[in-house]
């Protein structure tokens, strides 16, 4: 790696090179990702668009350390994670990335505030600093008055905002959003995506938003199309 490449790697939130993911189901071999290259700059928002089964979620899962590639290199915030063990990946997810999933995003028996604090509880345990950060995030997300509410007492939009807050709790380099508006109506979906953009840009945090929703692409800095496990040129 040259000096220029090293500096670029440090600047980029994500660099994926030649990522291949192959599943073997019974005797069938399924190529979910085929030599994918993807770079996301440190404050860039990328919309990842593609039909069902195209490999979007697999790509996101590998970027977030939920899955290891069969082949290729994954560098997140300067850390090469493609060879990480299961335990190292767990720590990586805890410390370096944020997730907002499509459906289940909150722990039902924890309040909104506790759903943010759980990130600290399973991680660094900063105590008061974490509590202050959770309160600040809830304030910024317009949820200060809902901090003591359980998820069942929140609307769909409020739940997504809490999930965004939780994804930002560990001050990640990269946040991965998987269909964040799929369960919301168009008006609420717009609000949430607007919020995502504002929060990411305010923090200089990179994000990948996996979506079917064309409206989201307007909020992204760049749109990447994926089809049959390959990035469309």
């Amino acid at each position, binding site marked *: 790696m040259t000096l220029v490449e090293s500096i670029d790697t440090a600047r980029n939130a994500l660099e994926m090179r030649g990522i291949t993911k192959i599943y073997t189901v019974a005797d069938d071999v399924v190529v979910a990702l085929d030599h994918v290259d993807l770079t996301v700059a440190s404050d860039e928002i990328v919309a990842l668009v593609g039909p069902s089964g195209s490999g979007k*979620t697999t790509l*996101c*899962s590998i970027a977030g350390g*939920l*899955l290891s590639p069969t082949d290729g290199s994954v560098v997140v915030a300067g850390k090469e994670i493609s060879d990480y063990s299961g*335990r190292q990946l*767990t*720590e*990586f*997810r*805890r*410390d370096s990335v944020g*997730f907002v*999933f*499509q*459906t*289940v*995003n*909150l*722990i*039902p*028996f*924890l309040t909104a505030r*506790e759903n943010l*604090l*759980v*990130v600290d*509880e*399973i*991680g660094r345990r900063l105590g008061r600093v974490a509590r202050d950060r959770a309160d600040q995030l809830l304030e910024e997300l317009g949820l200060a008055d809902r901090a003591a509410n*359980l998820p069942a007492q929140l609307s769909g939009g409020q739940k997504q905002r809490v999930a965004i807050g*939780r994804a930002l709790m*560990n001050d990640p380099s990269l946040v991965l959003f*998987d269909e964040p508006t799929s369960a919301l109506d168009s008006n609420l979906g717009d609000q949430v995506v607007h919020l995502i953009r504002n929060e990411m840009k305010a923090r200089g945090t990179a994000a990948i938003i996996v979506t079917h929703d064309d409206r989201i692409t307007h909020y992204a800095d760049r749109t990447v199309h994926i089809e049959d496990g390959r990035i469309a040129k």
Partner: protein
Amino acid sequence: MFLALHEMSRARVRFGMLIGAVGLLVFLILTQQAIEGGLITGFVGALRQQSAPVLVYSVDGQRTLQGSVINPGLEAKIRGVNGVAQAGWIGQSTFTVRVGGATESDAALIGYQHPGLGDPSRLSAGRRPVGPAEAVGSAADFAIGSKVRIVASGPAAPTAPVFTVVGLAKDAQIQVTPTLFVPWAGYEAAVKAANPDATIVLPSVIAVRPVPGVADTELVDRINAASADADALTRAQAASDTPGVAQVQQSFQLIFLLYGLVVPLVTGLFFLIITFQKAAALTLLRAIGARSSALVRSLLIQVVLVVGGGIVIGIALFAPLTLVSLGAITIRFDPGAVLFWSVGLLVLGVASALVAARRVLAIDPLEATTGGGGL
């Protein structure tokens, strides 16, 4: 602790009901354990409390005091066994008595020939008899100063002995009957008053003490080898081999075994069900970086809190019960038994949660991307 305690605080009814159920089971176990102890003590407490280290029955007596009679010939053989330091008579019969001015009731009399060889080892109150009309009574049934009159009919009635209770011994009943330990002369007088035709009062068993250097079990073997009609037993054997004792213990052990299965089954199934119910939440936690070990630890903390809470409730319910008696049976708070069951149930509870723990360890964080959380 964070996850374990917050989940429990948000599902108080669910966890409270489980803690209550475990508490009731613990209460039942401790109560039945105490009833078993009280029952056995009521049956053979006097044998455990008496001071003779070896008791020799006649084989025909089937190891019961009332059924055994030692004739002079057998007694001579026992006394002649090498290793016998001291031997004395012990007799036992049940009489109709009147305590004070109360109505008639039954009482067992145990007569002993020599102090220190058949009388109670320890007194809980009072002193030992110094004359034939004095007695040590079972503490649950008599009070110091109680007058116990043997009820006799016919010409012997006016001369029937009256015993004054001068000492008390705990756990000293025989056959779940109020029991008096009296000197042999007093016992003989009681037997003759109840049965005026009796010309001679034979002992039920011979109490034996070995010479120094000879173990109780060794002396038992020598006596049994000396006569085919002798059935020598150590004090502990005499108590445990009394007909019915082993059967009672086996019945209770079967009940305890069932409890030992029910408690872990209840807790194990409960935690397995809630692990399935919160599978999506556990998957999410794994996806955002929680270690499997942290989630298992949280599960085990809940198990310990539930079983521990149940044990505390069970003990709290059981303790007041030990202040009363169930008829002639004394329910006693036995710290050893409480500790045994507390530790045992805690271990069984944790072991029962291992199935749920395995499920937690099997969670694939990738399932979070599909909204699953299939375990």
